[in-house]
Structure formats: C-alpha cells, structure tokens
C-alpha cells in the first residue's frame, strides 16, 4: 500500500460517518437548479398555507367598480371580469393546485406501491394479472382517463384528485415492481429469508426501504404532472368549481377576455409554469442525489 493510500484511509477513518439521507441532502443542496426549485416550491407552499394573511383581498369578493382593471398599485395583478383581485385569486389558487398535486400523488402511491410490491415479490400468475391490469390502465392516456373518471364521478376538486390519483397509479405499480424485482435477489434478502423471516416482514422491512429513493423522485415528478392535470381539468370545468379560485379555471375564464384583459391569462399560467418547473427541477436534483448511477 502506498503512503498516499494509507493517508487517504486514515483520513476516511477520521471523517465523521454520515447517514445516507444526510449525504443525499448535501448532494441535493449542491445542485443549484434543485435548490432554486425547492425554494420556489417552499414559497408557494407558504403562500398557500398563509393565504388569508398574505392575500390583499378576499378572492371571491366582487367589485363592480373595478371590473377588468389593468395592474395598478391597488391591484398588483389587475382584476377579473367581475372585479375580483387577480393576485388574491392566484395566491388562493395555489391551495387547490398544491393540494391536488400532493393528494393525487398520495392516492397513487397508496394504491400503486403495495400493488407493485406484491406483483414484484410474488411473481407467477398474480404478477401476470396485475401487470395486464396495469398495462390496460397505461394504455388509456393519463388525462383522458382522468377526464373520463371525473365525468362519471361528477365535477369537483375532490373527484378530480381521485381521478388524477387513480390514473397515476400504474406509474408507481410499474416502478415499485421493477425495483422490487431487482432488490429481492440481493444477498441481504436471501439472508433474511434464510433466517426464517416471514414473507410480509421480508417485503416490508427488508425490500420496501430499499426501493424508497426512486419512489421519492417519481413522486416529485408526478406531483408536477398532477398539478398540470388538475389545472387542465379545472380549465375544462371538471376540477375546482366557481367561485373558488383555481389557476386552471381562472385561465378558462381568461381566454374569453384576451383582448380586453390579457393580464387575467398571464398570472395564473405563469404560476402553473413556475410551480411545475420547480417540481421538475427538484425531481431532477433528487434523482441525481439519490440514484447512485447519477453520482
């Protein structure tokens, strides 16, 4: 062993041992794009939570003396077709969008991860059956399936979130199954099986924790897709119902006043773009930080 190698080994011993989560967090913070994305997402979350204190006006209060007013000191983002403050509606709209993003992904994960875990772990006809069902759901384009489900369930934000969550489920089934199939042949799983652990314990205690990192990445990226899907459903009139504010429904109304009040279309769209871009940047950064192949 050379002198430098000995010195390296000594240095490595002296360095404090970091947990994998802390190492991933350090790598994530080093990525500027992910950091900016994370900060913007955090700002939107803060705006959504503290909307009643931040918003300058009540988002549903109409003012017939201020119909379609251009941005000014009184109304920074202007007003809409019935005199409501666009800034207040954009701030409150963040609630619907972020809630739809988070709850839809939670539904998709609650359904998709256990199904993927069973499918990948059990194999055989159970796997075949679950995969055909997943393929069938993947064959129906995400938004079209969500529109169809929202149509049958009835238009509301809750139903839109259910429709988006169920439509996004196959992505998590596929991902979990693939990850489980590669982890279950690892030596530590063999060892857990050899010492007599029951299947349920092997699946949940030994395999599941090892498939979490790619699931976190996918959840972040799917949140971005779910926010666009909610905005799309609301734009079509199948999501958040008036007068409650939502970026998608604001754009639906704004398209009828493009010549008279273009600002009505700019701000909600820009908000969707910013929050989706930030989730995508955060997702890309998380992938680099959590996936050993990307290091």
């Amino acid at each position, binding site marked *: 062993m050379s002198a430098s190698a000995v010195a390296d080994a000594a240095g490595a011993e002296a360095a404090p041992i970091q947990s994998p989560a802390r190492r991933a967090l350090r790598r994530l913070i080093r990525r500027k794009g992910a950091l900016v994305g994370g900060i913007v997402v955090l700002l939107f979350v803060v705006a959504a939570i503290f909307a009643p204190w931040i918003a300058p006006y009540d988002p549903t209060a109409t003012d017939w003396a201020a119909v379609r007013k251009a941005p000014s000191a009184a109304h920074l983002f202007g007003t809409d077709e019935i005199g409501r403050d666009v800034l207040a509606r954009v701030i409150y709209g963040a609630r619907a969008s972020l809630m739809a993003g988070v709850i839809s992904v939670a539904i998709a994960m609650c359904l998709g991860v256990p199904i993927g875990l069973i499918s990948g772990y059990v194999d055989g006809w159970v796997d075949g059956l679950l995969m055909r069902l997943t393929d069938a759901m993947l064959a129906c384009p995400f938004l079209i399936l969500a529109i169809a489900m*929202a149509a049958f369930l009835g238009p509301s934000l809750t139903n839109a979130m259910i429709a988006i969550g169920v439509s996004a489920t196959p992505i998590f089934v596929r991902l979990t199954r693939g990850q489980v199939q590669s982890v279950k042949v690892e030596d530590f799983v063999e060892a857990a099986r050899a010492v007599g652990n029951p299947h349920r314990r092997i699946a949940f205690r030994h395999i599941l924790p090892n498939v979490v990192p790619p699931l976190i990445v996918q959840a972040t990226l799917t949140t971005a897709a779910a926010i666009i899907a909610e905005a799309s459903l609301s734009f079509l009139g199948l999501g958040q119902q008036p007068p409650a504010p939502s970026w998608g429904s604001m754009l639906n109304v704004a398209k009828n006043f493009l010549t008279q009040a273009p600002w009505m279309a700019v701000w909600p769209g820009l908000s969707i773009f910013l929050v989706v871009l930030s989730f995508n940047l955060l997702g890309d950064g998380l992938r680099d930080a959590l996936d050993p192949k990307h290091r």
Partner: protein
Amino acid sequence: MLTFLLRRVAVIVPTLLFVSFIIFGLQQLLPGDPATAMAGEERDPEVVAQVRKLLHLDEPLPVRYGYWIAGVVQGDLGLSLRIQKPVSELVIEKLPVTAQLAAMAFAIALIIGLPMGVLSAVKNGTAWDYGANIVALWGLSTPNFWLGIMLILLFSVHLGWLPASGYVSPTEDLAQNFKAMIMPAFVLGNAIAAVMMRHTRSAMLQVLSSDYVRTARAKGLREPKVIGKHAFRNASIPVITLGALELGQLLSGAVLTEQVFTIPGFGKLIVDAVFNRDYAVVQGVVLVTASAYLLLNLIADVLYVVANPRLRA
C-alpha cells in the same frame, strides 16, 4: 420475427380485455341510478325507461358487459343519447381532424427536438447544452393550454397573423387549413419536442462514445459526416420508436388544444360529451384512444425490431 409478432399480439389481447373492463367499469362510478343520470336534467320517465332498456340495466352486471363487448367487437360503440347518432359514426367523423393535428404536432416535435438533442450531445457541457436543456425543461413545464392562450394573444390579437380559432378542412382550402392548424400543432408539439430532445441527447451521447464512431473519426472523416451518417443514423432508431410512445401525451394534449382553439376533433368530442352527460361517447372515445395507443405501441415495437437486426434472433 413471426414468433415475436405473435407473442406481442398475444399480450395485447388480454390488455385490451382489461381496457374494456376499466371502460365498462366507469359506468359503475355514476352515483345513483345510471339510467336517471344518463337521461339528463328532465328525468323524463319515458326516456329513463328507454335508457334502461337500451343499456340492459335490468340485467346483472356480467350480462350487461356481455352485451356491450359483443357490440364493441362488431364496431358498435353504442348510441349518443344527445346527438342521436351511433358513437362509431361520430368517432369516424372527428378522427381525421385530430389525426391531422397529431401528425403535424409530431412533425414539429421532430423538427425541433432532434436537432436540439444532437446539438446538446455534440456540445455536451457547453452553453449550447445548457441552453437546449433549459428549452426542454420549459417545454415540459409549460401547460399547453396556457401556451395556446399566450400564442393567440401574440399572433392573433396583437399581430393578427393567424386565426385565433376555428377549423377549415384541407379539402376545402389547404392554405387556410395550414394557417388554422399551425399554432395548435406547435402548442401540442412543444412538450413532445422536449421529450424527443432528451431522448436524442442521451442516445447520441451513448453512440458518440462507441467504437465505430471513434473508428470513423480515426479514418479522418469530417465531423459533420461522423455525426450525420454514423452517429445520428444509429441514435435516431430508438428515438423515433420512443417518440411513438408519446402518442398518449399527444392525445391527452389534443383534448386541451382543441378546446383552446375550438377545433372540432376527438378531444372536443369527449369534452362536449362530458358536459352533455353523453356517457356512451365518453366510453367510446376512451376505448378508441386506448386501442390506437396499443396498436401504435405494437407498430413501434415491430419497427424497432425491423431496424435493429440484433433483436431479430
């Protein structure tokens, strides 16, 4: 090759069967009595009874599915209760409009995505690469209905160059058809271009580090020839087949794009059907979309095997 084809078709059949279960199952999501829900606002008892008879709602669920799937297999997707026309006729009427929009959008995605991906890979790590990646991220993060509204604001309201909405059949006036479709096609192709750019970039990076590209350079070939003839030709095969898988996104996007630009296609058909509570049309459109998606996936798989001799064994 024949074995491969048979194996792929054998997988598609049960998938289609499950698709039919899901689409038929959608009807069960209707709250309360489906016949009353489908009969519309007036809830005329005669209409309710007619709907009940038409959809065999008095029969057990498996029997109803049997009636429905037997019709579907024979090309009968049901009857639109609002328009009083067979759903299959409506689908055939609207499909060419969406097919034209999708084809133009895919062409735009290729024209933008492929050169950007090649440039990004060839200039890896430079400002060009970062620039192309930013454009791709923009494409992936922009909701297409918002992009559509912004383009209408610029090109129709301010500049007055292109029509804001409407559709002219290409058989009526080709130039007007192009003017009406170019903006929606760009809006729809924008996100796919970003995906194509990312696929092209990663495929090109892989190919550019391969032995045969190194050999081509060692022979003294000029760089444009190395990239164009040796690298891109090989990288484009997986890119085009992967691009074909984006059809689902194209069809989803078409729903919104057609709504923004008031194009009377497949997407507008499903949205109008949703608001008219014309559930047979909703089911028919989802079924045709899913079947088209599976068929195009099959074609993409076959093309991939045809183009790559190593997979034929």
